[in-house]
């Protein structure tokens, strides 16, 4: 079973990397970009039957730092 965890900065947390990417896009002439936020995608290959709760625990304990980050789980079922 595969699952994907998307880790993103919480709204309001300044994202220096997103801002740099935004500037670089503007430098390439893409002037229709309003904002850029950078995050992480973590792909998990899991034993069948792994519950959403377990994946959530993985996120809270390690994959995301919930002080500054949110996470979203997407699974192939």
């Amino acid at each position, binding site marked *: 079973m595969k699952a994907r965890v998307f880790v993103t900065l919480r709204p309001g947390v300044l994202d220096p*990397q997103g801002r740099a990417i935004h500037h670089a896009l503007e430098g390439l002439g893409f002037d229709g970009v309003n904002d850029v936020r950078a995050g992480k995608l973590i792909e998990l290959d899991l034993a069948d039957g792994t519950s959403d709760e377990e994946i959530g625990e993985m996120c809270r304990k390690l994959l995301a730092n919930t002080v*500054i980050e949110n996470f979203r789980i997407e699974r192939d079922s």
Partner: protein
Amino acid sequence: MTSAVVVFPGSNCDRDLASAIKLVTGKSPKMVWHRETELPQGTDLIAIPGGFSYGDYLRSGAMAARSPIMRAVGDAAGRGVPVIGVCNGFQVLTEAGLLPGALMRNAGLHFVCRRVGLKVENSQSIFTSSYDSGEEIGVPVAHHDGNFQADADTLDRLEGDGRVAFRYTEEVNGSARSIAGILNAQGNVLGMMPHPERVVEPAHGSIDGRRLFEGLLEAVA
């Protein structure tokens, strides 16, 4: 005094920290590998060094904070044993939940490596008792992820409770309210991005960091 320096794969300031502790206390700390599950008997000071533990994978300090020795460090901190985390050590302590907030990528995106001005905000702690409150010192920083952030309530609480130990006197990395080092609620855990262990001998060009270790020795001995 029995001190311990925790060593993770990728730590690179562990020997600097050990050397500073030996210089001031006269006794070499025990170097404790991250796979250990217990600290040496009678440890009365724990130091978490700077560096790039686990190559800063996932987030700076994230993997180190979950390594076996950190459970023992957390238990000792709970019993009141002084713990100092410098640079990556500060990142590890926040990731381990022993200090609030998080250290994010520097606002300017650059790795900052220079001596910066620090104001001693609280001289009442076991780490800062040898300084005067409001005193300005110069201590080097060398980091990419030193941008301290926490929610406004947490920042207010840190400031209101005198838990901001050091503040930058200049713009360094975008840290909220220029915070360079903080204490836990009990006052026995300090995390700071600047490296006091790099300014302890005249040959370093400054000895502004030495009094931190001298104060600790006095507090513990």
